[in-house]
């Protein structure tokens, strides 16, 4: 089932990155999980059940969509979207949580815990828990609870308990710390559903595998739409799961790949979450990978308009792809991401998540520089409903929302 058998090695290393830097208390749970995962993906019955869940619960396959108007407007490469925003629960996260929930059942565990930033992974975990009758606790920073209020309510409605985290910057990193602390005392009965290709082995390889349905479908869909693979694929990178999911099945092909990190409000440490662009190798949350740290190894403060990208670490395989040059990593600022939300909404009728808007912003820069016969594929990892309140507030502050509704109503009356 895996497209790339050589990476990682048995100890979970992608080149020099990865491994398992966790307290001894968690090692038996990680060994159990690695064993169960290996057995499951070799098991035809498990694969069939997982695919059934992706189809019937996740709503897969997600569509490949050609952006007529955006392509015309930018005047360069043909732009396609892989519509992960159309999945049940509104993002790619459901692919992973369904896979991990099935593993939880195999291990005979009864409870799921998860960390969440934007809340999409929390909602996807809560959904999987409801589907399979598991107990579910989701850790979330209080700053994220504020800016992603809709998702907090969705998790609660799905029967999960949202546990507020008030330490540190009160965002994704701090929620991850608390989830790991919970797991230290609960791992015999609880499975930790880590939401990205981060953390200790086997999470990076396992989450990559559960997300690789994105790239496998996109590959086939591109071939039936255009008779060939895209020239460039662009995906946003926080921890890096949607990017790993779309890149992996085409990583051995001649396709240029671009990962877009959160550039925030500037290049100074503390104003962005561009881990691969600005960071250095270090250890955080159980793996050796690029991190944003100070000279003493203390995790740096980070910032992004997007709660899902607001994280000082990144998956170890992305570090390896950076080192080998296989993937180019760049960043986009908060403002560029907001502009991209407006652009895609106006030209295609699709409101993207702030996370995914980072990929769109990069594509908006790249497409005009490419010839008209080139193909640019964007992974639209999630939809923006959850961000509407936050975006509305910011656009109002930027003066881009001065009573447009009133003007519209007036115009209607005049007609």
């Amino acid at each position, binding site marked *: 089932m895996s497209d790339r058998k050589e990476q990682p090695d048995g100890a979970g290393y992608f080149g020099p990155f990865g491994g*398992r830097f966790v*307290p001894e208390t968690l090692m038996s749970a990680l060994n159990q999980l690695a064993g169960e995962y290996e057995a499951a993906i070799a098991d035809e019955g498990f694969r069939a059940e997982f695919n059934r869940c992706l189809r019937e619960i996740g709503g897969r396959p997600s569509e490949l969509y050609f952006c007529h108007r955006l392509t015309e407007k930018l005047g360069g490469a043909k732009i396609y979207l892989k519509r992960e925003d159309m999945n049940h629960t509104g993002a790619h996260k459901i692919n992973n949580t369904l896979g991990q929930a099935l593993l939880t059942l195999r291990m005979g565990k009864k409870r799921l815990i998860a960390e969440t930033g934007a809340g999409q992974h929390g909602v996807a975990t809560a959904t999987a828990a409801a589907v399979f009758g598991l107990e579910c606790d989701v850790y979330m920073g209080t700053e994220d609870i504020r800016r992603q209020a809709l998702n907090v309510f969705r998790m609660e409605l799905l029967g999960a308990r949202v546990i507020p985290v008030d330490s540190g910057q009160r965002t994704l990193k701090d929620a991850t710390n608390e989830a790991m602390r919970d797991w230290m*005392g609960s*791992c015999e009965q609880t499975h930790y559903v880590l939401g990205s290709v981060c953390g200790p082995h086997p999470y990076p390889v396992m989450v990559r595998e559960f997300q690789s349905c994105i790239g496998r479908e996109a590959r086939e869909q591109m071939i039936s739409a255009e008779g060939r693979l895209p020239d460039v694929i662009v995906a946003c990178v926080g921890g890096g799961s949607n990017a790993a999911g779309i890149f992996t099945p085409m990583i051995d092909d001649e396709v240029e790949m671009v990962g877009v990190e959160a550039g925030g409000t500037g290049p100074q440490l503390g104003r962005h979450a561009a881990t691969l662009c600005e960071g250095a190798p270090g*250890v955080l949350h159980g793996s050796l990978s690029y991190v944003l740290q100070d000279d003493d190894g203390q995790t740096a403060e980070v910032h992004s308009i997007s709660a899902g990208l607001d994280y000082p670490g990144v998956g170890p395989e992305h570090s390896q792809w950076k080192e080998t040059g296989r993937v180019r990593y760049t960043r986009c600022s908060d403002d560029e991401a907001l502009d991209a939300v407006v652009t895609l909404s106006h030209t295609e009728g699709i409101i993207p998540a702030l996370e995914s808007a980072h990929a769109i912003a990069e594509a908006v820069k790249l497409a005009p520089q490419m010839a008209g016969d080139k193909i640019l594929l964007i992974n639209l990892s999630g939809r923006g409903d959850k961000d509407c309140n936050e975006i509305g507030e910011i656009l109002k502050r930027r003066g881009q929302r001065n009573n447009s509704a009133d003007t519209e109503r007036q115009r209607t009356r005049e007609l």
Partner: protein
Amino acid sequence: MNELNDNRLNKIFAELRADGKKALMPFITAGQGGLETTESLLRDFEARGVRIVELGFPFSDPIADGPTIQASYTEALAAGVRVDDIFATVKNYRASGGKLALNAMVSYSIVYRLGVERFLDLAGEVGLDGMIIPDLPLDEAGRFEPLSAGRGLCNVMLIAPTTPPDRRVEIARHSRGFIYFMSIAGITGERDKLPEESIAAVAELREHTETPVCVGFGISNPRTVEHVCQVADGAIVGSAIVHRINDAKDRPRDELVKLVGDFVSELLAPIA
């Protein structure tokens, strides 16, 4: 392992065993209440008969620690405590004749960022005796072990209640100085009672190793110290001390040190 014969941890445990005695290891957060307080506490503990202390290096994301130690780390970092300052404090303590065995409790995030060899060189130079790296399990410690032993430093490894029996013996074989047995699966913090299975597991482990076995996590009062020392070579007390330092943080340094020191004397009493 000749290079570790002169290590203070090994010498102290050899002496204690010869005398039929047990070790109480207080844990303190370096820089909690200021590094001068840290140095004063070391001297006070030594004067009261403590032989080994664990010195916690504040870390931004300590996933094995409960709220008490985490808060002390956050506070020390906010006050600007840097790794270099901690090394300087240890150096001062040694320069003034301090004889405690000092063990760094330090995240691998810090060690890796400084550079493994550079961290170990500095640790050896200033007079640390070993380190406990809670996020460097057996599987990742292979390259680290010879580098620390080569500098005369003990890499103390941890065993959890969730560690399978064969792996416990394997960890014991690799651990230097002593073996840190975590009494509970979970995070650090004070508990009233320790699980009997852990006590039995320590007794069992001692059948398989000559290396001293010490117990930490959840030990908070003289009763629990006495309890674990019935089978273990020593008891490690962290959160109960850190919370007392925090409670006394607005008092003059002498008073804080005496209050905390008096508590340490209470902990020492049952094993004196």
